[in-house]
């Protein structure tokens, strides 16, 4: 009797815990039906969201958008700064010529809250995996090969911190960033839409340096040195000519470059006649455009090949380096500037106090209305900056980020207040990301993306629909089968089966584990195993009844004997599930976790729970038959 009492308590506790974790899911505590109106600058309503389900604090236009448009309370007006995503504009049926920093207002007009649960209910909610809700999974490896053991350790730690900072500022809800082995970092960004932008942001080393531009004399020396080296060793580099032809042909095929030079002002090549090409192979690749040296797209491949040659790097006069300028985002295959700089770093990003995005003012068409990054140096940095700008008036100071020259303005006057600007052909997002990266600090060691998985939100919701449908239909057919084949006993088993699925979901919620597509597959497999446990028991009971035992003895013996089999079978499956968990990455882990939970839960529901029900049925009156 005492044993039965203990069992009853166990069952009640399990059900209460399950209920505790699942009720928020059913009640959708934080969700509300919202009506939202969006107005433009002139207070004209341009967009309306009606009868939508929104979570307070969630983003109206997707997670990558400005955080200022989070859904607030009723009556709160929400300011939307920036560009409304195209997919929303498409629904508007109007064409709006958006400025990059357009300001519009949204207003929450009405909210009907759904079941609000008491505050003592679980705050946890069943999370969906990236494959179901969409998002990005990134595996990063910190390149610590050249570092000592301690330095490697601290650089991984530093990288983790910096990546966390960058992502926090990027504004993704519930990001997961964790160190998973000695030098690997796993980043999971649920609900992310612009995968490439996030990837760029995370991987950027953002080594900001200020270098002075070389004077004309040094530039000429450098160019001549390379020219004469290539000329004297032409046999060795004859293949470069082939590359050039090939590259031109390829580029033409790819991008249909017109016969005419892309930029007519960039026409004055230093040396261009064909006979002299061998003589001045290098200088023939460079053109002058305004103040800058540029490389035309058809010469780009060859040019980069030459400056990357180790022998060429050796013969460049010491103290000089050649760097490419930034790609024009509007014409990524267009001409690119090239810079000759002194390799002494005058100042680095380490001296920065802050970096933020501003919009150019004034009349100058080159800067007005365009975003730029405003830099503020710390005291020490400001001192150096003032000294450098004072000593090198009328020279050019290049702003180099990750070995790419962003701009090289001419120093007009000594700058004392430690303020500087990085201008360039930035888009709003680029400028924002650059500021984030500069602000959050530099990665201590290069970080490589070694694995990336991105699932779009629409595919995720398709998968979830399909997965749930499959699970549900499978479950329905199986319960019907059990009901027909084992009648009342089958019904008891069916209830146990449904409890089993609910317990799995509750435990997943409790452990903060996410439900993934392989996880759904794991649940489906558990359904099979839970049914099997009951089939084993019922077949045994039938055997016992056939051999003439009473109902009471048959049930007791049936359970007693079947339990051995069930335990043996489940423990071996548990062994595989645990091994799978140890070895697996993301998706496999989800499968292993649900399978393990499912096995344990099914042993509880199929053995303990159903036995309790049977005992209850049999005890009440002396039974001579059993519906099985």
């Amino acid at each position, binding site marked *: 009797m005492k044993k039965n009492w203990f069992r009853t308590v166990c069952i009640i506790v399990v059900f209460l815990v399950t209920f505790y974790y699942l009720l928020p899911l059913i009640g959708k505590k934080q969700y509300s039906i919202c009506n939202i109106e969006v107005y433009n600058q002139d207070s004209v309503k341009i967009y309306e969201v009606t009868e939508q389900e929104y979570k307070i604090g969630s983003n109206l236009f997707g997670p990558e958008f400005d955080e200022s448009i989070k859904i607030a309370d009723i009556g709160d007006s929400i300011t939307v700064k920036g560009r409304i995503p*195209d*997919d929303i504009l498409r629904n508007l049926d109007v064409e709006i010529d958006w400025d990059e920093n357009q300001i519009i207002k949204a207003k929450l007009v009405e909210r009907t809250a759904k079941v609000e649960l008491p505050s003592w209910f679980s705050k946890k909610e069943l999370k969906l995996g990236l*494959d179901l809700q969409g998002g990005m999974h990134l*595996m990063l490896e910190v390149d610590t090969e050249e570092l000592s053991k301690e330095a490697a350790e601290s650089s991984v730690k530093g990288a983790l911190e910096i990546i966390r900072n960058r992502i926090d500022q990027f504004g993704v809800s519930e990001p997961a960033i964790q160190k998973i082995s000695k030098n690997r970092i796993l980043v999971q960004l649920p609900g992310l*839409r*612009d*995968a490439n932008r996030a*990837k760029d942001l995370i991987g950027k080393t953002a080594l900001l340096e200020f270098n002075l531009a070389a004077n004309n004399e040094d530039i000429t020396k450098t160019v001549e040195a390379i020219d004469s080296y290539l000329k004297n060793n032409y046999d060795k580099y004859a293949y470069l000519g082939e590359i050039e032809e090939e590259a031109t042909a*390829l580029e033409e095929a*790819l991008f249909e470059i017109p016969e005419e030079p892309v930029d007519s002002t960039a026409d004055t090549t230093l040396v261009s006649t064909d006979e002299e090409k061998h003589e001045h192979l290098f200088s023939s690749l460079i053109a002058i455009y305004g103040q800058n040296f540029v490389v035309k797209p058809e010469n780009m491949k060859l040019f980069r090949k030459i400056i990357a040659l180790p022998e060429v790097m050796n013969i460049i006069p010491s103290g000089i380096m050649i760097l490419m300028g930034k790609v024009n985002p509007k014409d990524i295959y267009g001409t690119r500037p090239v810079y000759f700089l002194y390799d002494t770093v005058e100042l680095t990003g380490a001296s920065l106090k802050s970096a933020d995005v501003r919009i150019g003012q004034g009349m100058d068409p080159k800067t007005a209305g365009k975003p730029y990054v405003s830099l503020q140096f710390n005291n020490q940095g400001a001192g150096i900056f003032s000294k450098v700008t004072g000593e090198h008036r009328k020279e050019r100071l290049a702003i180099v980020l990750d070995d790419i020259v962003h701009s090289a303005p001419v120093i007009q006057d000594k700058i004392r207040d430690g303020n500087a600007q990085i201008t360039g052909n930035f888009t709003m997002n680029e400028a924002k990301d650059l500021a984030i990266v500069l602000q959050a600090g530099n990665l201590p060691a290069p970080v490589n*993306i*070694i*694995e*990336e*998985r*991105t699932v*779009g*939100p*629409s*595919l995720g919701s398709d*998968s979830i629909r*399909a*997965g749930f449908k*499959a699970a549900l239909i*499978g*479950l329905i057919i*199986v319960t019907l089968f*059990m009901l*027909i*084949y084992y*009648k009342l006993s089958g019904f008891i088993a069916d209830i146990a089966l449904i409890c089993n699925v609910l317990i799995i979901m509750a435990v997943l919620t409790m452990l903060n584990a996410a439900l993934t597509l*392989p996880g759904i*597959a794991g649940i*489906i*497999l558990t359904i*099979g195993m839970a*049914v099997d446990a009951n089939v*084993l028991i019922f*077949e045994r009971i039938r*055997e016992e009844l056939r051999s003439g035992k009473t109902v009471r003895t048959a049930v007791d013996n049936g359970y007693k*004997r079947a339990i051995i*089999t069930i335990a*043996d*079978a*489940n*423990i*071996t*499956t548990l*062994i*595989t599930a645990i*091994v*799978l968990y*140890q*070895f*697996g*990455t993301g*998706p*496999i882990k989800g*499968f292993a976790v649900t*399978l393990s939970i499912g096995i344990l839960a099914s042993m509880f529901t199929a053995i303990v729970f159903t036995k309790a029900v049977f005992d209850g049925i049999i005890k009440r009156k002396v039974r001579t038959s059993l519906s099985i």
Partner: protein
Amino acid sequence: MRLFKNPNIDFIKRRKIAFFISIIVIISGIVSLIINSGPKYGIDFTGGILIEFDFTPDDPNSAPIDIQEVRDALSSQGFSDAEIQEFGNPNHILVKIRTTQNPKEDQLNIISILRDKFPDNAGNKQISDFQLRSEQVGSKIGEELQGKAIIAILISLLGIIIYIWWRFELTFGFAAVLALFHDVIITIGLLSIFGKEINIAIIGALLAIVGYSLNDTIVLFVRIRENLKVYRREKYKSIINHSINEVLSRTIITSLTTLIVVLSLYFLGGAVINDFAFTLLCGIIVGTYSSIFIASPVLVAYRNWSSRKTERSSKRK
């Protein structure tokens, strides 16, 4: 309601036919593996990039995308080693490239080529609507995974042998593991014959099959162990046959119910999970078959062999 009323089928007598069928299936799988030079690994193991695109045209009345045009568009632009296949829906196209030096740039190039080439299917879409999902796996991590997968399978097989050894006897353990190898080899062969890829999810499915097939075998072995104690005078062969018949309705019912859920997963679970479900489907059928026709007869075969051996050695004395 009962499926079988006191079945009495002589499974052991038919073991030679079963062995023959198994060997034929295994050999055809191996032949397919040799022709295709090994199993077809997914990019999880080889490294590379995979992108799924949605080419659903803007105009709902126009015809679905012609996969050959996508193939031509990419191969004419230097992506001749890209594998292109339809995925679950005539407008969903999967592009895979295994050998890539610069995955990020390749991915961007592929997207811009396809958007330029198919303006009506892709030009007006946001990137996140056009590119449904993408995966990039470095070749280094792929190689690591290959090693890890093999170790995982070996460790779990070892764990199983030890557990069964402890619970039954060593012969049972080896018979069970032999049946598992049989199931895994046949399933890998079938995957190769049907041109399916082996990726991490499939490894998961293979291990699930190991679990399932084992479940079946153990249920049978428990009954055999029990009956060996009860019917000591009967022949070993007939005890085993008797045991198989006793648990037959349970075996069939469990297989059927599991098969039902896996079938619903296969037909309704969506394209992403399709190969996974296919693997489970093969495995469940083969696993049920192997516990009856492989694991149990192996016990008999071993018993016959060892008793012949002891006879021979006693004769020699």
